[in-house]
């Protein structure tokens, strides 16, 4: 196992003439929580899209676990390799119950390979982690916004991912819920897991992130701890300057 979970190398993504990501390189290590921040249009979500296989880059590559070039893999292959992502807009299956979500997340395949008790155990365990034990039999469509966010985290968590990508996990949450989410994220840290968080809430980022990457116009503007980010002139310029 390499230390670097994800290596993004010279990545360029274009939409028409617009460069969403422009020759971007960065490395994310196992065991860390990396926050990716930046103003709107900086390329944060597009970066996650490339990593999870939704968008194909024009140039560059993404290496997983130091060895696998996943740039051209399909979304599902990437997911099966252990890279899971929570979307910016809570994406849950409105017609399924909470437990069904976790079951789908825990074990990939049209037929479950886990035996029933093992699966039930795993579901209960995950539900406990994300605090949705009470809601197990409810339909996802009926959940509140915060619960949907946690359900989606639970769903991507259920498979024990090596790389966990969280796109704005606290957008639209109350302070209390944000606090709870922050604790949840920190609790998910493991030495063999990398966590990438895209977020606008600076306080939240400060609470969870080991390191912060600031993107601007598709490039890395700055990389370092949150303190340093706050002190950096260029970053302040980008966020407040205009």
């Amino acid at each position, binding site marked *: 196992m390499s230390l670097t979970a994800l290596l993004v190398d010279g990545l360029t993504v274009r*939409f*028409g003439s617009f460069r*969403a990501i422009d020759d971007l390189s960065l490395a994310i290590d196992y065991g860390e929580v990396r926050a990716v921040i930046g103003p709107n249009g900086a390329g944060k*979500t*597009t970066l996650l*899209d490339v990593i999870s296989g*939704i*968008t194909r880059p024009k140039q560059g590559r993404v290496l997983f676990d130091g060895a696998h070039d996943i740039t051209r893999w399909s979304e599902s292959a990437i997911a099966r390799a252990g890279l899971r992502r929570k979307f910016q807009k809570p994406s849950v299956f409105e017609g399924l119950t909470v437990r069904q979500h976790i079951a789908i997340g825990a074990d990939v395949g049209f037929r479950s390979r886990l035996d029933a008790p093992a699966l039930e155990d795993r579901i209960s365990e995950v539900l406990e982690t994300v605090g949705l034990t009470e809601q197990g039999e409810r339909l996802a469509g009926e959940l509140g916004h915060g619960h949907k966010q946690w359900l989606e985290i639970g769903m991507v968590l259920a498979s024990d991912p090596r790389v966990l990508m969280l796109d704005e996990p606290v957008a639209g949450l109350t302070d209390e819920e944000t606090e709870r989410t922050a604790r949840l994220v920190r609790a998910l840290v493991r030495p063999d897991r990398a966590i990438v968080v895209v977020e606008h809430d600076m306080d939240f980022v400060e609470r969870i992130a080991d390191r912060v990457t600031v993107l601007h116009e598709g490039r890395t503007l700055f990389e370092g701890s949150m303190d340093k980010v706050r002190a950096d002139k260029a970053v302040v310029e980008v966020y407040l300057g205009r």
Partner: protein
Amino acid sequence: MTFRHLPTFLAGLLVSAVLATPGAAAALDRAAVVAGLCGNAGQMFEAAAALTATAATGSDEDRAWALALPRALIEKTLACDAAGAVLGNGRLDAVSRVVREPAPDARAPVLSLKNRAVFEQADAALALRSTPDAGARAAALRMLERRPATIPEGLLDAAAARESDPALKAQIEGLAQTAALNASDPTARLRAIGRIAENPSRRALAQMAELTRDPAYATNADFRAAIDAATRRIERGIAIGDVLAALYNGLSFASILFMAAIGLAIIFGLMGVINLAQGELIMIGAYVTWMVQQGLRAVAPALLDWYLILAIPVAFVVTAAIGIALEALLLRHLYKRPLMSLLATWAVSLFLVNLVRVVFGTQNMQFETPFYVSGGVPVIGDFIFTWNRMFAIAFAVVTLALTWAIVRKTPLGLNIRAVTQNRDMAACIGIPTRSVDRMAFGLGSGLAGLAGLALSPIYSVNPQMGQNFIIDSFMVVVLGGVGTIAGTVVAALGIGQINVLIEPLWGAVAAKVIVLLMIIAFLQWRPEGLFAVKGRRK
């Protein structure tokens, strides 16, 4: 176009007729001619021959007398009775030209097809010589041009000598030269060959092919060279004509597709709503056009010819209003459920078809054909520039220009574009997306109404007519790429042209099948169509 069996037949008869009335002096036996007109088919035929001969060689008085007769027969205004015949509405005796009433049992003779041809000929020959109206003489000349080989000798020369209009005179002389193809004078023949080659057509080619069997072709080098040159020239002309015809047919089909699709493209692009009632809005546009026509007929008959133009605002406003009502009552509730809106609009289409059926009946509506959408001009080879198609093309071009102007230059257009690109963002900056939807739906529906108007001179107008367009127009919209006018234009042109190119090879059905399969295959490869805005995809 030919009427090939007639020339020899008729020519022989004419010769005998001319021989029977030697010189211009011999007076026409008027009573016998009128009797012939009221006789059996054979007698009618001979009477027509006599009339044609009179046109060529008769006296001025006879010609003036004869002028009205063939037309009366063609128009069935000649009433035959025991005492002879009475002409038309003037109640003039056909022979004496004294006013008299026809007998109660008078009958109007019906022309057989064969006789219709010779009477058309006689009418044209007489009109060319004797009508004071230059326009009518020109029309007569065009009729004679259809069958140059049957023109009696001397007619054209005599007509040319008397012709006062210089342009018409030149045309008559030109035709005279053409008609001299089988003359004895070799220079006249060569000139005729040259003349024929000036108007290339398949018929001309067949004439040339026939001449290669002429003894002169083998013996006379000049003759042979003239024929070969003419053949080459005609073949080139035909080739050009075929290309032009294919382009024109393709363009006209494309303009129809475009008209049918543009409204749909706006609606689909903006709201993602598939409006299956679009074809019915086209149909209603055509019915509105019909009602405008009927209104004009009752109120202002003088303007009747211009109903197609006057109906433009009416058709647009009525269908736009229907569209707006549809949006407000039904589709407004369905924007989150595009597939349901598809079913809902299908229900609307079912309703509209049957409503129109109950109100107007199922028969084809009757439209006047104003001069600007009737007939056509032969251009080169077999290419005929037909005015109703030209009307559709011109209409499509104007619609395109107006649509483009609305979308690009007006505040509504700006809003439409904004909402098409990003609904949420547009709503955020204060664009009233709901009312933009409604206006755009009205615009799209109004354009469908205009399509109905433009199609009414081309297709039968009945409650079913809209259903012919729906799949084709969808294909145009998806192929073009959602929400782009340019895409719609290019897709319509492409589909129209390819269709027209395949059609002569494998037939109309195969053309349609192949084109549709091509589109389906293309969309599998590029689901977003020809012109699509790329963006981050979810």
